[in-house]
């Protein structure tokens, strides 16, 4: 697969040229800035080539038959031409081949995306290191919690370039989807099920992200920025946040959970409660003083895992 792509790189460029003219950096999906987005980009271009081929064949045939048989006095009219077994087999087999050519890399990429991308950060000591960020979508903002650094940001996140970042995605209320097109494809955020998304930026830069699943009034404003910095700048930023930014109080946290749009913010710490990734219903139960209920709800997720174990297949938790 890889070889094939390198072999036809010129063709790719040629095809992509009209798309990219002038504003390549504006077409975010075709401007991958990390390994995840790049693997998806390769898949997109590969499918684009195959599909352009199909379209070309259809268009050529279409123009030919119209030009040849659309004239008033065209010759070659043959009402008895009602089928041709050989031809029909040909155009059944060709799509099958195309499907196989598309399905194989699709499945490969699918399985590859389960694993963290290879770190490319320059100091070798960073190799093998990953960063985890807990992302919570709230109507209509994004909360980013750094469980290892113990800091929290709103509507922007700083990540070290060249290091795989595991985003653990949660929703507080409505379903949203976390999408940073230049770094990689999206994943939904849901209230009952944390999901993970590996992303990595090649080099320092700011990458626009937004929610891609409609969640109500302020949905269009649910944007955020992922800022990739080199390793030292990232550490400096963490220290800066820890020293210069205010702490997020419990009340402040609860205020953030109200449906509203807010400006980007950063906090040097977060309340203990935030670690639980409660959803709106669990939070309300807690407020109402039913703290025991809340534990049983966490237990619900465990039930689910047990259920899977029962069936002898186990979960797919690789965290």
């Amino acid at each position, binding site marked *: 697969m890889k070889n094939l792509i390198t072999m036809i790189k010129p063709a790719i460029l040629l095809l992509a040229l009209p*798309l990219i003219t002038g*504003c390549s950096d504006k077409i*975010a*999906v075709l401007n991958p800035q990390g390994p995840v*987005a790049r693997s*998806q980009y390769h*898949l997109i271009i590969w*499918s684009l080539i195959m*599909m*352009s081929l199909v*379209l070309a064949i*259809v*268009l050529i045939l*279409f123009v030919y*038959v*119209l030009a040849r*048989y659309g004239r008033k006095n065209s010759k070659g*009219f*043959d*009402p008895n*031409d009602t*089928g*041709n077994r050989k031809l*029909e087999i040909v*155009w*059944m087999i060709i*799509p*099958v081949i195309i*499907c196989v050519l*598309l399905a194989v890399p*699709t*499945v490969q990429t699918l399985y590859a*995306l*389960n694993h963290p991308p290879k770190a490319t950060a320059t100091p070798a000591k960073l190799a093998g290191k990953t960063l985890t960020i807990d992302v919570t979508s709230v109507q209509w903002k994004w909360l980013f919690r750094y469980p290892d650094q113990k800091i929290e940001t709103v509507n922007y996140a700083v990540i070290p370039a060249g290091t795989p970042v595991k985003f653990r*995605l949660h929703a507080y*209320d*409505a*379903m949203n*989807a976390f*999408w940073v*097109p230049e770094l990689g*494809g*999206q*994943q*939904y955020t*849901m*209230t*009952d099920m944390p*999901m993970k998304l590996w992303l990595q930026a090649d080099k320092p830069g700011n990458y626009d992200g*937004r929610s*891609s*699943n*409609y969640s*109500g*009034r*302020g*949905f*269009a404003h649910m944007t955020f920025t992922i800022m990739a910095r080199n390793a030292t700048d990232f550490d400096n930023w963490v220290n800066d946040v820890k020293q210069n930014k205010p702490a997020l109080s419990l009340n402040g946290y609860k205020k953030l959970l109200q449906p509203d749009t807010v400006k980007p913010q950063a906090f040097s710490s977060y309340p203990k409660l935030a670690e639980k990734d409660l959803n709106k*219903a*669990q939070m309300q139960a807690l407020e109402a003083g039913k703290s025991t209920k809340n534990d049983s709800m966490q237990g619900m997720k465990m039930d689910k895992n047990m259920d899977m174990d029962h069936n002898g297949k186990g979960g797919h938790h690789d965290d």
Partner: protein
Amino acid sequence: MIESIKSFLGYFFVTGDPMIYGADASIALASIGIVVVLTYFKKWKWLWEEWLTTVDHKRIGIMYIIAALLMLFRGGVDALMMRTQLTLPNLHFLNSEHYNQVFTTHGTIMIIFVAMPFIFGLMNIAVPLQIGARDVAFPFLNALSFWLFFAGAMLFNLSFVIGGSPDAGWSGYAPFAGAELNPGVGQNYYVLGVQISGIGSLATGINFLVTIIKMRAPGMTLFKMPMFTWSILITSVIVVFAFPAFTVALALMTIDRLFGAHFFTIAAGGSPMLWANLFWFWGHPEVYIVLLPVFGIFSEVIATFAHKTLFGYAVMVWSMVAISVLSFITWLHHFFTMGNTAPVNAFFSVSTMLIAIPTGVKIFNWLFTLNKGRIEFTTPMLWALAFIPNFTIGGITGVMLAMAPADYQYHNSYFLVAHFHSTLIAGTVFGIFCGLHYWWPKMFGYLLDERKGKWSFWIFMISFNICFMPMYFLGLMGMTRRMYTYPAGLGWTPINIVITIGAFGMGLGFIIMAWNIIWSAIHGKRDTTGDPWGGRTLEWTTSSPAPEYNFAHIPEISTRDPLAAMKEGKTGDLRKSSKPYEPIHMPNNSGIPVIMSGFMFIAGFGFVFEWYWMGIPGLIGVVACMIARSFVYNDHHYIPVDEIEKTEAATGRLS
């Protein structure tokens, strides 16, 4: 007291927007106008006896199409409002709430209340005629289906002026569409309006399935059926087996919202993803429900105007069978990005790609039907021809979307929006316009004007491309669907301006078509032969419009394309028979369907507002109508021979 009335009215009627007051006024004026006209011309009795109580499939088909055209107008206005709002960044033509309602109603109306009824209308008109039957298998049920659809559509549309429109998108994703995050009546309108019309759709599916398998003219084996009939047979199968899942999903959402259950809620272990799962289990087959019939229409029209039999008939049929089987195992591709494991996504990626194979095969079969043909560029043919390249673009982007990892980048973006409009407009809308022009003379006895038809075609088709091709790029640039506005400086503005121009162009094309319909009603060329196009199938052997009983003698078939074979002199005259006429057994008209749907509407409205004092009597009324119907034994009559002779003589077919 007065205060409470005031606050009730404030809650009951949608207030605060001049556009809605305008709608209030125009709805009131139109209703008054209709009542006045009907009373002045003493048409109430005519309306009741000829239309509201009819069980004639041709009239029911016409009513479906009228309703669908009206709904298309509303859905189109919604679309234009959305496009106006998005022309430039940071516009305030619509606010966020209003925009959200508009895209929700646009989507729901276009799929449920335009595409489906339009197709049901065309199949009502054409299928019994194509198979040489006198009516559908269950004429009463057919009328009931229509009126249930109509009640559902009216209930849904009422939300615009009473209580407030739904605003959770046409797919109504939980938990946002649940009572917790979306209180108020809007989503109730959605679940109940769609539910009521869905029951009608299920009944239509059963009806046409039985009609086609049991009521074909003698000699018409399955593999001698016209392709449109085949497509409706397959579509009916999909309707019958997909709609129950939707019925359940909507019922569960209703129970969640009205009775506090926890199927899709955030709280108490509800699973919001389950809604997406059930919705798309219906939603994907639904795509084929609105696409396969137009494949049938295109097959008919292309064969007719290429003056050739369809190329590879058997392969065409088996492709549709394959699509119907596969369409039930691809639904997950609508939510690849909901954290499914790799095996799940891989399975559904591959199954989705597989479904492209039979679709691609059909495209080539159409191209080879044109090949070696004598192509005649009539308006219906233009729509059919335009379908091929435009739909292919929708199809290939569909394959691109089927590749799960790539879909992570397309999902919910304008790329997706462009893709499904490429399939649903280039497929379904082109198809229903094609069918409308093609069967119009069969419905009304006159032709639509070709010149105006071609103008509307070219304007609509070119505008369609101006509107939707740029959207692919917009999606790749990161613009997601359902955004009511966007900031400047992202490079999206010029593309959005182009898109809006295209959208208004499509509006213009539609207006020209509407003008064509009105103009042709007065000046249109009359169809005196019953066969204005040089047709190939049975519907063109009877007069235009067809008599109540369709065929005085049930034709006997020995070949595919029987009328074409007859014209080539291969078989005897299908129109004439030496046998004497016999009295024809026909179903009686019935007021029960319209009354029962009225009760259904009342029940639905009651449940929307959670007024059980209204909802429960409504349901009791529905059950009472069913019981009443069960005790009706005198439900048919015979058309006497002399009346048949008179009718046949009038069309000049009596020798």
